[in-house]
């Protein structure tokens, strides 16, 4: 059996350098010059992006070729920086930061208002708390895990800002910059090879297409999740003496079980480098982890369970010495659910647990159910599956290559594997596979990077940067398809905002705000004062057939006596979403709009290029443009 060894903290490998000092100086400067050039080139391409011409492939359909040229140049300079004899941390860090801005900041720079309907909804929850100073768990699930919203409302008050919409467009850049710190700690916790660390980071940002890094509880709690894992993996490793004891234990067991005698030594191999820590430091760090866990539990439904699964697996497989943490996190989760989130759980327990253990149902909601819509959208969904498989395959090959070179990296393998059982837990609105992908991404990119820099001596030939470059190009092209593939429905225009603002201006409290589909920037103000319905996304029991989408049925819905008034809002983004996702046959929306405008039962009270507001005919006061 090959001796399993920890990754060595030493990375210096003596190589001959025949270049003159001038040539070496030029080689050191070249990545800087290329990075600056790539950044400038990328910036000057932005004004040429015409969002109005987007098709169902999303943002990539309107990106100029020069955008990709800029990314290729940046990738080239990154590979040069990575291959330098003395890796300059500031240089590779600068490349990663520029990459973050290029990939995650492009929407904020080319779109006039923050994208993504969910962003506006989260802003509305925050606004409610800021305005009323309380939470009402009966409104919706957000108010049962309100930690993020409470903190955000507080911060907005201190900053003197009226709404989080002011900066929501830049939150993805901010959060991804925030993820840098714990990711560096995580990747450094098991290797001293800085090339492996920075390539892992590079791959992380090229493959983090899930779009949960918007103004949301998940965006923040993902950062806290990374910090918890970073702390435990850096300062709470099982050290060699403990692992020796475990080896003795496994040898005793081995008298009874041959398999455990073979596996035991493998489990006992400690990760390196081992950062020294004193009992007082460890105590302080545990207190910090506990405080972070408390915020996690109060802010998000799913992330605490991801933390629980990850750290439990690390403890069980003897990779983490903080053995009380799984119990502590369990107690925190149980306490919150029993005393605070009980209102929501009491009404939704069956929907949360109906798919437990149901592999077929999980695959159906996470994969098959998404493979519908326009041909281009189906291509986008398939690309998401391909990108997922691609990075997991790179990780698999990286893991195999590492094993063949004597590196077990059990901690990362255990961490990644610990999240797989979530696939057969609650379906989470068909998003569980994406969440598993996101939570498992740090260990996955470690193994993917290890494919290229398996040992301190590998990856020194010209083939490695070429391979990294080719993989990176494939990944960033895929990134724009996977992350921004729904952009035609995710982005909003000022005209759409104007239409919705008009509806809020004229709507009475407790009115019904009705939309064609839920892809619009509403719910951002006075959230609790209105009732919201979308014709193509009605609650079960109220589902509408396509034949029901006519002025008479819609008018009947709006005449419901439980609402003092009703307002139908139709926007460009809703129409785009309905077509993109295949919710309605082609031409249905245009016919419906025409019928609505000519119906004697409804009156158009507001219209611009991208939005219309209808009321019942006996209420309206004429068109306002």
């Amino acid at each position, binding site marked *: 059996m090959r001796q399993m060894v920890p990754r060595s903290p030493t990375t210096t490998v003596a190589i001959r350098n025949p270049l003159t000092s001038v040539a070496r100086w030029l080689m050191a400067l070249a990545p800087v010059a290329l990075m600056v050039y790539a950044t400038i080139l990328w910036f000057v391409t932005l004004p040429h992006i015409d969002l109005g011409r987007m098709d169902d492939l999303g943002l990539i359909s309107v990106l100029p070729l020069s955008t990709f040229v800029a990314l290729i140049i940046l990738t080239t300079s990154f590979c040069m920086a990575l291959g330098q004899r003395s890796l300059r941390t500031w240089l590779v860090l600068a490349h990663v930061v520029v990459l973050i801005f290029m990939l995650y900041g492009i929407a904020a720079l080319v779109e006039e208002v923050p994208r993504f309907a969910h962003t506006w909804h989260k802003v509305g929850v925050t606004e409610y*708390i800021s305005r009323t*100073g*309380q*939470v009402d768990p009966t409104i919706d699930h957000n108010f049962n895990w*309100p*930690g*993020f919203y*409470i*903190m955000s*409302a*507080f*911060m907005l*008050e*201190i*900053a*003197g*800002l009226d709404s989080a919409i002011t*900066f929501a467009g830049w939150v993805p850049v901010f959060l991804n910059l*925030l993820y840098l*710190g*714990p990711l*560096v*700690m995580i990747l450094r916790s098991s290797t001293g090879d800085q090339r492996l660390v920075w390539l892992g980071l590079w791959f992380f940002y090229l493959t983090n297409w899930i779009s949960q890094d918007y103004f949301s509880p998940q965006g*923040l709690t993902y*950062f*806290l999740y990374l*910090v918890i894992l*970073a*702390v435990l993996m*850096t300062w709470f490793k099982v050290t060699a003496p403990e692992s020796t004891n475990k080896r003795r234990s496994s040898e005793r067991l081995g008298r009874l079980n041959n398999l455990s005698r073979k596996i035991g030594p493998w489990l006992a191999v400690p990760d390196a480098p081992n950062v020294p820590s*004193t*009992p*007082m*430091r460890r105590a*302080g*760090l545990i207190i*910090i982890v506990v*405080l*972070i866990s*408390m*915020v996690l539990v*109060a*802010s998000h439904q799913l992330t605490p369970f991801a933390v629980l699964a990850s750290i439990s697996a690390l403890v069980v497989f003897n990779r983490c010495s903080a053995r009380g943490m799984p119990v502590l996190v369990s107690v925190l989760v149980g306490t919150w659910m029993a005393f605070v989130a009980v209102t929501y759980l009491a009404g939704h327990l069956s929907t949360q647990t109906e798919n437990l253990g149901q592999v077929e149902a999980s695959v159906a909601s996470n994969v098959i159910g998404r493979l519908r819509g326009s041909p281009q959208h189906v291509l986008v969904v398939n690309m998401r599956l391909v990108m997922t498989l691609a990075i997991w395959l790179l990780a698999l090959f990286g893991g195999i290559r590492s094993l063949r070179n004597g590196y077990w990296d059990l901690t990362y393998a255990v961490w990644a594997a610990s999240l797989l059982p979530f696939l057969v837990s609650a379906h989470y609105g068909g998003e569980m596979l994406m969440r598993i992908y996101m939570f498992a991404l740090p260990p996955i990119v470690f193994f993917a990077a290890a494919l290229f820099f398996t040992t301190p001596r590998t990856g020194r030939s010209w083939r490695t940067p070429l391979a990294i470059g080719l993989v990176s190009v494939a990944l960033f092209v895929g990134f724009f398809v996977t992350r921004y593939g729904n952009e035609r429905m995710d982005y909003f225009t000022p005209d759409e905002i104007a239409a919705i603002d008009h509806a809020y201006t004229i709507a009475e409290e407790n009115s019904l705000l009705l939309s064609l589909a839920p892809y619009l920037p509403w719910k951002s103000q006075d959230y609790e004062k209105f009732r919201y319905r979308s014709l193509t996304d009605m609650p079960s029991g109220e589902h509408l057939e396509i034949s029901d989408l006519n002025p008479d049925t819609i008018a009947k819905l709006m005449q419901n006596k439980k609402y003092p008034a009703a307002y139908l809002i139709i926007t460009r983004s809703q129409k785009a979403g309905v077509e993109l996702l295949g919710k309605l046959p082609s031409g249905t929306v245009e016919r419906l709009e025409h019928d609505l405008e000519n119906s004697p039962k409804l009156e158009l009270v507001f219209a611009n290029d991208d939005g219309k507001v209808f009321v019942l005919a006996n209420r309206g006061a004429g068109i306002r443009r």
Partner: protein
Amino acid sequence: MTALTATWPLIIAVSSLGTAIVTFGDVESPVRPLIAFWFLLICPGMAIVPFLGIREGISQLTLAIALSLALDALVSISLLYAGLWSPDIMLAVLISVSLTGAALQILWLGRDHEQDWLAL
């Protein structure tokens, strides 16, 4: 070896003062959000993390931001559920924590038993 220096206590003190002025004085200025977010994201955590003796900058900063966010959230959540929704009070609590931590750092800097503390 210690990670305590005089730099961060000074930054925390100045940031606390600046945040107090712009917030309690209800100053309307484009720099108010910058000052407020800087304080809320960095200072409460940075008042405490140096005591852990972690010398690596990125680890220190990461922990400081995470702890700052945690303290911001826990203070605001606690007071909201206690029926005391008052951002001014919440900020006062955080400024108190920050200044206390900064003061303790200054006090600890001059003490000979820093290493004894960390060696426990």
